[in-house]
């Protein structure tokens, strides 16, 4: 388990090699990912951009261990997660997922939610976990809400708490699936700032799915543009805007240029996906 991840020796290099995923090969036979490869360096913020229904979530689920892959392999820091002999990765707290619709347990308070991971992993005693959870929520600006249930706080706060729930386990990789999708632009800005702040503090590797191009460039070190289904890597755009980044960056010349570059690549795919009538699941 990843403990005491210091800023100097970064962990969480993901290597995705020739991954193919076919849903139900004998039945419906949907090829969601086809021979897709990408390398994600340790401590990198890697943004995945592609049209809806192209197979991004499928790829993330394979890394997280929610389902098997049909071919290829995925390694984390050189260790095999899934491959030919073991098609389904084991779920583990080193790869924490933040879900598209939010998956804080609605029957637990924010504090209990955050304390849950360390408690069931027996990394901390329940009371220690609660204490640490409360502390981390307070650091994330949620100190007044630790006793609230997720249904009682705003979606932005819930999402922030969910990220705290992930980070308390010292994960190597944070997997985020369109976490800010349903949010208004202003809340999104606040969420971006807090995610960047978290990243600067922890240096955790981030695998972030989005189809908001500005979000992708603003947050990412690299933007991987993937094709419409079946998902393949189409183009990688490196974002060489120094950190820490602030909102002024978004109006800079460099940012605009990158946006055009990414947009060019993704637009073509979006048109294809639209014509094919792709739809996402879940």
């Amino acid at each position, binding site marked *: 388990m990843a403990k005491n991840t210091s800023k100097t020796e970064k962990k969480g290099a993901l290597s995705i090699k020739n991954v193919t995923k076919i849903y139900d090969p004998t039945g419906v036979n949907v090829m969601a990912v086809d021979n897709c490869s990408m390398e994600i360096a340790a401590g990198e913020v890697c943004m995945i951009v592609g049209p809806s229904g192209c197979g991004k979530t499928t790829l993330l689920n394979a890394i997280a261990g929610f389902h098997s892959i049909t071919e290829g392999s995925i390694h984390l820091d050189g260790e095999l997660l899934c491959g030919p002999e073991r098609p389904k990765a084991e779920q583990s707290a080193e790869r924490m997922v933040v879900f598209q619709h939010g998956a804080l347990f609605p*029957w637990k308070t924010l504090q209990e939610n955050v304390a849950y991971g360390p408690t069931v992993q027996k990394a901390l005693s329940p009371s220690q976990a609660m204490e640490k959870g409360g502390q981390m929520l307070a650091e994330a*600006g949620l100190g007044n809400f630790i006793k609230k249930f997720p249904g009682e706080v705003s979606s932005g706060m819930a999402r922030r708490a969910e990220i705290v729930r992930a980070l308390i386990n010292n994960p190597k990789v944070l997997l985020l699936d369109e976490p800010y999708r349903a949010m208004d632009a202003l809340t999104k800005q606040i969420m971006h700032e807090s995610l960047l702040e978290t990243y600067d503090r922890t240096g955790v590797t981030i695998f972030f799915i989005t189809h908001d191009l500005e979000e992708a460039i603003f947050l990412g070190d690299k933007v991987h543009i993937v094709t419409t289904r079946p998902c393949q890597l189409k183009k990688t755009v490196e974002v060489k805007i120094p950190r820490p980044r602030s909102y002024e960056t978004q109006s800079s010349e460099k940012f605009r240029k990158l946006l055009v570059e990414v947009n060019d690549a993704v637009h073509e795919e979006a048109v294809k996906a639209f014509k094919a009538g792709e739809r996402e699941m879940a």
Partner: protein
Amino acid sequence: MNSSANTTTVAPEGFNLFIYRVKKKFTGPDPYLTVAGVFLWLFTYWVLCEGLEIWRFTKLPGPVAISKDWFSTTPFQGISIFTAEYYDHISVSCQRILIAFGIATGLGVPLGLFMGWSRSIRDYLFPVIELLRPIPILAWVPLSILLLPGFEGPVIFLATLASFFVTTLNAMLGVDSIDEEYFRAAGCLGSSRWDVFKNVVVPGALPFIFTGLQISIGVAWFSLVAAEMVSGDLGLGYLIVDAYMNNVTVPMVIAMITLGFIGYFSSACVRALGDKLMGWHVKELAQQGR
């Protein structure tokens, strides 16, 4: 940096909250409508039986005759709030319901949860339960009398059976209703299978379970009374048939009304217990304005 909580006003608590709720209740039209509705019913009833004495309704005791007996220290037809017999019937029925509902819940909830949680347990048991469930409760009467000794056994068995099926099915559907993402989140966070059961399956199914329990306590009353009417020695159901057989109609109606009140009260208790156990659910619904 974060000072959004300062603007919220202090919510009323304790006694003040109670006063606030009572006030709020009586400012809306609902309580007046309820009172008006009850009076309208009673009035119609009275007109039919005692006011105009419409054909056939003369066989029924009207509201005046019933309340005279019900609240009399010396009731004509033997049952009133001052007779011990009345309370004997009530307490026997209530005891049976407590036992039957307790057994049904104690068996049904875990069984339903396990069936929802584990594919193999479901495959094993669900078809059998589905096969037994549609058999009407009265069809079980002969079998239960053959199988179980005395009066208590069959009556409690019949009341348990119906409510057991409802509870089991609802608990299982409750597990089915839990969003897959909660299971995934629990898996990521390092839960064992048992952790998932305790922290996701049970609380996630609770809203469905309590909906089921509210129905199941109603079903328990329903089948208890049916059972008492067929094979009983005491209890409100027995009182109804007994009164009918002896041509005393007032106790019959008193027993019916009493059943209505107790049934209403028992559902309310189950609902209150559910709200207490599921604070999160109540608050979530409140946020959505419900």
